[in-house]
């Protein structure tokens, strides 16, 4: 009785609600934006963008000496946009493969960030140590301001996706047709990765690099199991992202000492694995059933 009472209270506490709103907004938007990213085979651009932000954060700190969140966020955003620009540039104009380009941007960007931070620390610049914690999540510590920012960016990203859905899905599906009919493929391509980068940067202080990457990748691939329609996939991905966020937040509000961000990721992962098992057409069970049935028919006829 007492236990359930406490759990109940925890679920409706102010902080729980704030965190739930913030992460649900990010979960929904990341699911939608991520769907297009995953279909364009750009799933891990988010990971690269997240790591590159450290260089921006460090540079901005070195220039201004301020550790205020808006200043650092601005630096992170610049770095992420430059990072994905380099990424798109290298993909277009060099022979290096996509995944290698992602890994290069990720590791070199992060290394540069660490070098700048360590350089400042070694020179005794106060406040410079631990800037890389910017990449770690503080999901449980979202404030109403954070949640509002996340909600706004999520609304903006969802509207951009809604506006450019037609164009982006076209280049994702059939690039040569898109080019032949006169759509600016390179521009749209860049727009998509910038959208992902913005998502990542805004989500970083709240969710951390790994959670953002997870929210951009896992809900879309889970949603893909359930549907063959793109619009539906985007919606389902957004929904899965949202459900994971709400579920993870609720669970971490009930059970003590359960880090919120990782629980959200685990929720999404569980949804993904369940989807792989029981999805109506593509799921493992459905496929097994199909093969059994066709075997049965073959037996009857044989």
């Amino acid at each position, binding site marked *: 009785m007492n236990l359930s009472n406490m759990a109940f209270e925890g679920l409706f506490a102010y902080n729980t609600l704030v965190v739930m709103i913030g992460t649900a907004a990010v979960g929904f938007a990341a699911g939608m934006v991520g769907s297009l990213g995953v279909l364009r085979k750009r799933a891990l651009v988010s990971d690269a963008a997240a790591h590159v932000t450290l260089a921006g954060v460090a540079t901005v700190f070195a220039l201004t000496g301020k550790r205020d969140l808006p200043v650092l966020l601005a630096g992170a955003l610049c770095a992420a946009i430059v990072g994905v620009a380099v990424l798109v540039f290298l993909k277009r104009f060099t*022979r290096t493969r996509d995944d290698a380009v992602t890994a290069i941007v990720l590791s070199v960007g992060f290394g540069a960030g660490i*070098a700048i931070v360590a350089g400042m620390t070694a020179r005794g610049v106060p406040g410079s140590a631990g800037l890389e914690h910017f990449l770690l999540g503080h999901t449980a510590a979202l404030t109403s301001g954070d949640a509002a920012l996340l909600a706004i960016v999520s609304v903006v990203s969802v509207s951009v996706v809604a506006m450019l859905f037609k164009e982006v899905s076209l280049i994702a599906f059939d690039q040569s047709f898109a080019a032949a009919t006169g759509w600016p493929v390179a521009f749209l391509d860049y727009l998509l990765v910038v959208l992902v980068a913005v998502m990542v940067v805004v989500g970083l202080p709240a969710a951390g690099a790994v*959670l953002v990457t997870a929210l951009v990748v896992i809900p879309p691939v889970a949603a893909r199991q359930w549907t063959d329609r793109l619009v539906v996939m985007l919606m389902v991905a957004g929904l899965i992202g949202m459900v994971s966020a709400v579920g993870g937040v609720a669970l971490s509000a009930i059970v003590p000492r359960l880090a919120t961000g990782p629980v959200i990721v*685990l929720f999404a992962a569980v949804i993904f694995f369940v989807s792989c098992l029981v999805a109506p057409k593509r799921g493992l069970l459905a496929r097994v059933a199909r093969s059994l049935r066709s075997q049965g028919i073959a037996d009857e006829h044989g």
Partner: protein
Amino acid sequence: MSMGELFSEVGPIHGWAMATAALVSVGAAAVGSMLVVRKMSLLGDAISHAVLPGIVVAVLAGGQPGGPLVILGAIVAALLTVWLTHVLRRGVGLAEDASTGVVFTTFFSIGVILLTSVASQVDLDPACVLYGILELVPFDTVTLYGCEIPRSFLNSLVVVGIVGLGLIVSWRLQVFVAFDLAGARAAGMPVALATIVLLLFTAMTVVAGFEAVGAILIVAMLVVPAAAAELLVHRMHHVVCMAVMLAVTGSIVGYLAAWHLNTNAAGMIAVVLGFEYALAVVFAPADGFVSDLMSVAWLRWRVACEDQLAMIWRFEESAGVRRVTPPKGLIDCVARQWLAVTGQIRSKNGQWRLDSYSRTKAESIVRSHRLWEAWLGRHADLPLDHLHPPAEFIEHHLGSRLLRQIEDDLGQERRDPHGSDIPPEQ
């Protein structure tokens, strides 16, 4: 100061640190070349996150930081990651990057949850348990035959030795599988074995790399030198050698730069490796931007000079009927001046003349022009007046072997479609 004093207490600190970085980078670059070719570059990053649950479990089971149990836990977690990624790709049909993304984020989250809930009372900073500090590697030594050798260096030596030997033994198989998976399978090669061995090597290298030089650096060491080497050279064993060279120089230059700038060596080495890659992008002999620009510029210059020579040759051939027109653009103007200054053409009574050397050159250009016109006229459905422009373009590109081939193809024909004689080969 005597030699005894010189060698007394402190070893060559930075030398050992650099040697360790270089050694790890050799293994990483070799394995990384394979990974890059097989589009598995992101595995390093994935493993660097995904080992966390393995470490936590190992520590909970009583493993000591840097001890064998922790390393074993990390390797097991790394192999699990790799295996699950593979299953998702094959079984569910996910793309490589998506399956990697799903697995490593999930693993990392499991690790953090274990850390905060089960192990929250342990002051278990994953960074302390596994990730080495390159700069301080030389202080952690073991004595071997009376020599103080850093433990990480020895560990890396063992791992790099195993990996290097394994790669050399399975070299042909690995290369075949990397370039033509379907073909290798069709040829009945043990493709699965090759893949498993490669992934095992990757896991070993990455974990050993963490332990020696830290997580930031190993991801860079795996991919960046290999990708740069791929831009510079083309054959697989050249790629591996080049990648190893780039990795080693990157390690040493990066460490020195870190010393000079007083900053973290791992971060700086990653930056230097990135710089090497950028240099490769810009200056690669075949595909680099600079060589592209240079070759285009050089081609334009050569074309301009050759056009001048050919024009004067035609003037001489026609015994003055055709005119030597004044140069049109700047480059033509400079080209003619250059030819005049170097004595290849001379002005005599207001008429331009070729010397014997440049006459040979001019003749071969005209020969190439007319041969091409004749050949094109025979083989392509083109009106007579459309033959000249393509020949103007091609005349600068045909070598003597090709010209002979074209001549053979034309048989007895010794005139171009406009009726001019084709000069014979010199």
